[in-house]
């Protein structure tokens, strides 16, 4: 009568899509209204797990961007800068409340549009995004405590926010919540492949009775973003995305009074000493590189293991890899969903091929992906030399490069020997060694015996080619004030 083990293979546990009602076609959200783009151009936002079109989205031209920036300026002059800070706080708080109420809908939409597992959008993206609004609502009338004096809490004006495809709503929240709390108005440009939660967020702003023009959403490709960057009436550009685009933004804004904050790429090191709690380090590695299929700017994509334990770490990681559940992003048990776009999938495959060609050993779980959609299985490389492309370039996929070190000095040197400096991880049971290492790692964030921990009160941002400016906490508030 004992049930057989095979029966316990998890049955599909699909999250319902009933909470989401998509429009066939989305306009631009400008001045509190949905408007058609000037030249009527649209593009499709697709589900990367099925390649099906989810909705048609407007392609904003320079004229549309101009309209949005004007609306944001009007909103700033007419309402937002005049509002008492305590009233501003109420609006930000109201946005947080409406987002909480619609959390399930946002989670499903994020997963449909971007391919990330529902477990992550439900447990990480949306709760974190909401938390940023709650946190910053509290700051709006207490800014004098964040900077040195009340006379220095002036807002900047109109903020152009350009966000990437990996955490669409969350990174938008990182920018919009402090911008609004500090008294600025916003023009948001979501990524071309993931505009839908930003558009749903526009509905949230309307539902929260935000005055017209305070938040505007323009969708489109890189040219829309460029038009926003180049618009003369923008006071600040805050950008999260690739280092390449970040550099072009710096060039475009050089010599203008525009302020710029950039959160760019990374090739973060994950240092494991021989006295580390190994099972937890393995979970840390999995969280660092396979979270969101490695579409994470702070992904721990370079694993540096003390030479004496490398074989054990590789064996444990190999065993752990076999238990990672790939598949339908809407299944609540999926650990790795779809890759965000065909272009991204191809880029991952190219870089992996370069690793194989250069002589590294590829370990991959055998997995047959669905016929449609864009997929890439959890992978890691051993026998990686620091000169290989897979050890130098950001892959932005579920691919880890494993290298070794012998001494703490060598670990630090190798970790820092990269143009990036976004995040790093240190694993050891010695508090002294953890602090010694953390102090010497050139990274904006260093996590000890954990990885990918985020909180609105904790600033996040990079060094070197990973950008500058901080998001979150008091440091993040200053970035939206005329200090």
């Amino acid at each position: 009568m004992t049930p057989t083990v095979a029966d316990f293979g998890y049955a599909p546990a699909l999250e319902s899509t009933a909470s989401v009602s998509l429009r066939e076609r989305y306009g631009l959200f400008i001045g509190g209204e949905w408007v058609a783009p000037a030249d009527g151009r649209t593009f499709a936002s697709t589900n990367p797990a099925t390649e099906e079109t989810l909705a048609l989205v407007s392609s904003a031209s320079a004229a549309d961007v101009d309209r949005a920036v004007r609306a944001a300026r009007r909103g700033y002059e007419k309402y937002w800068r005049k509002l008492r800070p305590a009233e501003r706080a109420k609006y930000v708080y109201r946005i947080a409340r409406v987002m909480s109420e619609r959390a399930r809908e946002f989670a499903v939409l994020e997963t449909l549009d971007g391919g990330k597992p529902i477990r992550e959008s439900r447990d990480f993206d949306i709760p974190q995004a909401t938390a940023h609004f709650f946190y910053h609502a509290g700051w709006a009338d207490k800014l004098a405590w964040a900077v040195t004096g009340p006379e220095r809490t002036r807002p900047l004006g109109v903020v152009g926010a350009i966000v990437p495809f990996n955490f669409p709503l969350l990174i938008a929240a990182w920018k919009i919540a402090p911008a609004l709390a500090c008294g600025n108005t916003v023009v948001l440009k979501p990524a071309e492949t993931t505009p839908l939660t930003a558009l749903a967020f526009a509905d949230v702003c309307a539902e929260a009775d935000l005055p017209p023009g305070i938040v505007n959403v323009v969708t489109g490709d890189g040219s829309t973003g460029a038009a926003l960057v180049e618009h003369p009436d923008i006071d600040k550009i805050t950008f999260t995305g690739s280092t390449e685009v970040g550099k072009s933004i710096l060039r475009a804004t050089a010599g203008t009074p525009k302020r710029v904050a950039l959160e760019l790429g990374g090739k973060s090191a994950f240092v494991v000493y021989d006295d580390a709690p190994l099972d937890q380090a393995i979970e840390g590695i999995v969280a660092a590189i396979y979270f969101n299929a490695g579409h994470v700017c702070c992904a721990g994509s370079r694993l540096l293991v003390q030479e004496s334990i490398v074989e054990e770490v590789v064996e444990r990681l190999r065993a752990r890899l076999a238990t990672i559940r790939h598949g339908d992003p809407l299944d609540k048990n999926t650990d790795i969903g779809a890759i965000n776009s065909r272009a991204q999938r191809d880029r991952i495959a190219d870089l992996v091929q370069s690793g194989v060609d250069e002589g590294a050993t590829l370990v991959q779980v055998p997995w047959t992906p669905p016929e449609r959609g864009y997929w890439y299985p959890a992978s890691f490389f051993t026998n990686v030399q620091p000169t290989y492309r897979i050890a130098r370039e950001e892959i932005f996929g579920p691919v880890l490069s494993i290298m070794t070190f012998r001494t703490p000095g060598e670990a630090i040197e190798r970790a820092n020997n990269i143009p990036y400096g976004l995040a790093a991880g240190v694993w050891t049971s010695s508090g002294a060694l953890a602090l010694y290492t953390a102090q010497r790692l050139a990274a904006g964030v260093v996590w000890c015996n954990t990885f990918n921990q985020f909180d609105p009160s904790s600033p996040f941002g990079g060094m070197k080619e990973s950008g500058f400016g901080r998001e979150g906490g008091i440091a993040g508030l200053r970035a939206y004030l005329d200090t």
Partner: protein
Amino acid sequence: MRRVRVDAVMLEARAATLVKRSIKASAKRAGIDLAIACMDLTTLEGKDTPAKVRGLCARGIAPAPGVPSVAAICVYPNLVATAAAALAHSSVKVASVATAFPSGLSPLETKLRETVDAVAAGADEIDMVIDRGLFLAGRYGQVQDEIAAVRDACGRATLKVILEVGELGSYEAIRRACDIALAAGADFVKTATGKLPISSTPAIALVMCEAIRDYARQTGRDVGLKLAGGIRSTKAALGYLALVNETLGPAWLSPDRFRIGASSLLDDLLMQRDKDATGNYSAATYVASA
């Protein structure tokens, strides 16, 4: 024995992910029957009587029509003969706590004598407690020797070693006690007596699974896991099955290698089973208790 380091933050995070797996439809049905088949249906109260134990045995053999038998009935040594008689013609094993349960603070000779007597009275399985006083005093070798001595005294009986995790103070200590029990020859390692507020949590189950997995890898010997105390809902039981499934592998999803010690859990499993079959929740009175 190498000291294994354990860090609470990622251990708890991983355990939380595993017990939140969504177990639906066919997996839920299989999981409910598996949880019943892996159950040590337990009564360990000062007021236990032969009549109570006979009732429990009858329920363990046939919890409800079409439902698998539980793995064992777990009682105090004085009630082993009663249980053995009641279970004589069934697949259900007789398990007995021994070794001065629940404290373990008696002379070793007394513990061995209690073990031998329980086996002689018909116990197929012995649930011993480790001496936490010895462990916390750092006398690890002596803890291991005592377990090995009880293992010898068990003869052909299966030995489950209770760590009483709630008294050990940290995950790292639990891991260490688990490693000692494995090396001493335990057939099962078990979380708790059920007499303390802290008994089984997902993170504790995970750290013990990791010890069992590493031991199997090093020695080739597969040791079982028994979770006891505080598991009262179907949802919790299914979560632990998922945790074992993904940490030790599906080979551990059998009464030979996995047990849940519980008294009230069976009620909820039967009600959920019924709900799954009929679509409706029955009142508790529709589940025969003992």
